[in-house]
């Protein structure tokens, strides 16, 4: 019980979830780091017949889940904290993924089927003679990473600037974001766009000179993902605990009131949207080398809306909730699609309905209600309100 309390924080009446979240940062990061190290160590140090051995397949799967968790974090920041339901975050994820995919594609060099030293296979197939301008420089790792951050950020900035300035909110905004990702889906399906059309980018060989199929590379990618997730988690937590975080909550709960207090809410929303899109872009860039493919399917509206349900299940408005939701649902998806592939969409659809109807605060909300009940049952757990004031002031 005490362990769980330190892990998830005290769910007391009247105490803010924001402060609890602050308390939870450290244990969460610790758990993330320790489990990552354990998984890596058991893969690299133990032999395959050892009962504690973690296969490379599992490591890659975990890495994929962590990318999804990062993506869920991005959606939670914008939806859970600021009330902007984006149904187009898959687009930012995919754009980051494509930037990384372009780098990996250029790394193939002359080892492609057609053996062209510069042009990727699909361009040779389309009978293109030279590299399009937007593929220039993508053979540089740093440049590709920069693009994985800048392109989603820029798109989010332009879209957000237009939308938030003209005060498009609520459902309208959600539909617009969905239309955005849908338009990108259609665009990336076109061969003429120069991103491999229907098939996307695949058959990657190596990253920074390391073989993508090698165990060590895969474990490193997983570890890097975990590390970046922890970093982004800490930064986001800081952001949400700062006064800016309070302003963002204020915008969610009463945007016009916040405006009358002198906050240019549209600027806050734009920058938060950009921040969120950049996280999604990074998640995409980490995702592609681990799964080995990126195609226009990532832009499809259903992908984006699935992210939202991860966050909803975990509990929006809590960063940990988003991460837990993403991990649980994706694990369930892996198991489900293996056992009864037909039933997955039923389950997912049902989940949408059940969570919105009966679990509006998600698993974290459920946990907190349980905690409150338990605390009420145990009188010694009750704490004087004075203590709460003290903790509040010190924060």
């Amino acid at each position: 019980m005490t362990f769980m309390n330190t892990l998830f924080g005290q769910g007391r009446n009247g105490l803010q979830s924001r402060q609890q979240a602050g308390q939870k940062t450290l244990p969460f990061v610790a758990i993330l780091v320790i489990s990552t190290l354990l998984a890596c160590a058991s893969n690299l140090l133990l032999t395959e017949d050892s009962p504690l051995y973690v296969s490379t397949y599992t490591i890659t799967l975990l890495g994929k889940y962590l990318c999804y968790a990062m993506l869920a974090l991005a959606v939670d920041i914008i939806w859970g904290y600021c009330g902007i339901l984006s149904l187009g975050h898959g687009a930012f994820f995919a754009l980051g993924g494509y930037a990384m995919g372009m780098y990996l594609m250029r790394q193939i060099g002359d080892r492609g089927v057609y053996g062209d030293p510069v042009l990727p296979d699909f361009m040779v197939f389309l009978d293109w003679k030279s590299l399009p301008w937007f593929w220039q420089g993508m053979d540089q790792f740093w440049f590709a990473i920069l693009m994985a951050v800048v392109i989603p950020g820029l798109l989010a900035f332009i879209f957000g600037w237009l939308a938030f300035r003209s005060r498009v909110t609520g459902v309208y905004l959600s539909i617009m974001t969905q239309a955005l990702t849908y338009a990108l889906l259609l665009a990336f399906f076109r061969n003429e766009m120069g991103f491999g059309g229907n098939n996307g980018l695949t058959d990657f060989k190596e990253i920074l000179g390391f073989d993508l199929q090698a165990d060590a590379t895969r474990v490193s990618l997983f570890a890097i993902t975990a590390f970046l997730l922890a970093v982004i988690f800490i930064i986001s937590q800081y952001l949400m605990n700062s006064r800016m975080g309070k302003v963002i909550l204020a915008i969610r709960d009463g945007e016009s009131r916040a405006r009358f207090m002198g906050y240019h809410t549209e600027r806050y929303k734009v920058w938060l949207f950009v921040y969120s899109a950049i996280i999604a872009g990074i998640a995409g860039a980490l995702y592609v080398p681990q799964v080995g493919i990126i195609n226009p399917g990532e832009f499809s509206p259903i992908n984006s809306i699935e992210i939202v349900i991860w966050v909803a299940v975990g509990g929006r408005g809590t960063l940990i909730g988003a991460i837990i939701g993403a991990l649980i649902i994706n694990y369930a998806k892996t198991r489900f699609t293996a056992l009864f592939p037909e039933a997955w969409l039923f389950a997912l659809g049902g989940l949408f309905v059940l969570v919105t109807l009966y679990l509006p605060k998600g698993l974290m909300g459920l946990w907190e209600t349980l905690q409150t009940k338990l605390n009420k049952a145990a009188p010694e757990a009750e704490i004087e309100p004075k203590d709460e004031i003290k903790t509040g002031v010190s924060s």
Partner: protein
Amino acid sequence: MKPIITLIYCFLVSLSTGLMANDLANNPTSLNPQTSNELRLALTQVKLKAMPPLLMQIKQLEEQQALPLFKTLLAGRLYYVKADKRLIQMQKKGKERHYFSLETDQPLSELSKNQVKKVKLNNAVRRLLKSTIAELELNHPDPELRQAAIESLLKNLDSKLIAQLEQRRSLETQEKIRELIQVALNLFQLKTNPSPAKQIEAIEKLADRLEIPVKNQLTQVAENSIHPEVKQAAIRALTKIEHATNRYALVDQLFFGLSLGSVLLLASIGLAITFGVMGVINMAHGEMIMLGAYTTYVVQLLMPNHIDYSLWVAIPAAFMVSGLMGVIIERGVIRHLHGRPLETLLATFGISLILQQLVRSVFSPLNRQVFSPSWMTGSLEINPVLSLTLNRLYILAFALIVFFALLTLLRKTSLGLNVRAVSQNRNMAKAMGVKTGWVDAMTFGLGSGIAGIAGVALSQLTNVGPNLGQAYIIDSFMVVVFGGVGNLFGTLVAAFSLGIATKFLEPMTGAVLAAIIVLVFIILFIQKRPKGLFPQKGRAAE
């Protein structure tokens, strides 16, 4: 000489067969069974060189009755059974060959590949067949066939044909066909008359014709004529034709735009009610359309012999199925999420996933074929470059009918009054004794039911599959938002303007890019005018 003999022979035979005589006289296929049969039998045996005279004989004997035979032969589908030299026709379905009786089209399933042999033909025979068929059709009693025949003859005119055409012109009663014959004569004059004056005269008469051979011939003259004045005239005529063609192409584009607009209107009009009037986001709206389309499919399965009437059954059935589903969704889910639009969006999206998977599990993930009734197939041909397909015309009319019916329903009936009351002030309506729950359910059912009807219409245009609805949901939302939420007329204008814009963009950019451009345009438009084309004004809208 020969036909007369045949007739006499026939007369004698009919006399000898008593009662059957009447039948035979009325049934010209058996004009002269014996001779005709003999000639046809000969087809299977003669060398290629002897074929043309034989075919001429058949033509003279049978006249129009020989058309199916000639056409089958020309298409290379004429076979005969090795054993009894019976002529049959072959039809390929995929890689399989199927054989049918030449006269009755009855399938002859007992035949196998090595029991039959193809009737051979060469290019000389093909040429002969083509002109013979045309000639026979030229004098066909059916005016439509005659017109089609002359149109196909325009491509290769010769003096023999011209003589026939002139002869035909004197007999012809139809004005349109006489004009067409005149075109052929002018064309021939242009081709063969050496006098530049005559050529120019012909060119000037041809300048308002849109037939392709006319254009081709004029182009040829414009390029090759040695007389500069003829060349000039041809170029003038060509530009004139070009302008006319462009005008009709524009009309054609407009028609396709209106057609797309009518589809968008049908798809979004239900949404205009649930989203626009009730303010409920229903992401499962596309699936309501899909259910309507599948209902059509099921109805056709149930009445396979009455495809022509199936749509009249499918429309009310689809309305009931989708409407009922809508009521269930409203009562089961949406009701509990009142005032939480984002949650409603998520929950209904979940429902749409469930419905899609349900259809996949029940009907398979593959597309299903829905047949068009015969009265909807074909097209309305206005001139050689413009023809409007009937199914699109019907759907355009249907969309407008549904729209105005709905408008009347909302404006004139008590349900409409209740719906408007609830949408404007729910609590007040409740206080006045309106059963808001019932009104909500009915409105939602109505919107969904109309989506179902849209599905019936869509099944006539596109493939019916589990993803049918997905393809339309974003477009529908765009139409409603573009037109201005809560404004049915706005939806009408938005649907047609988006449809027309897309179709006019398509030739320039391609279909996908056109769709993207329209989407991006709407995204930008909404950010400039968040309330759409026709916003609701005033304090109430705040």
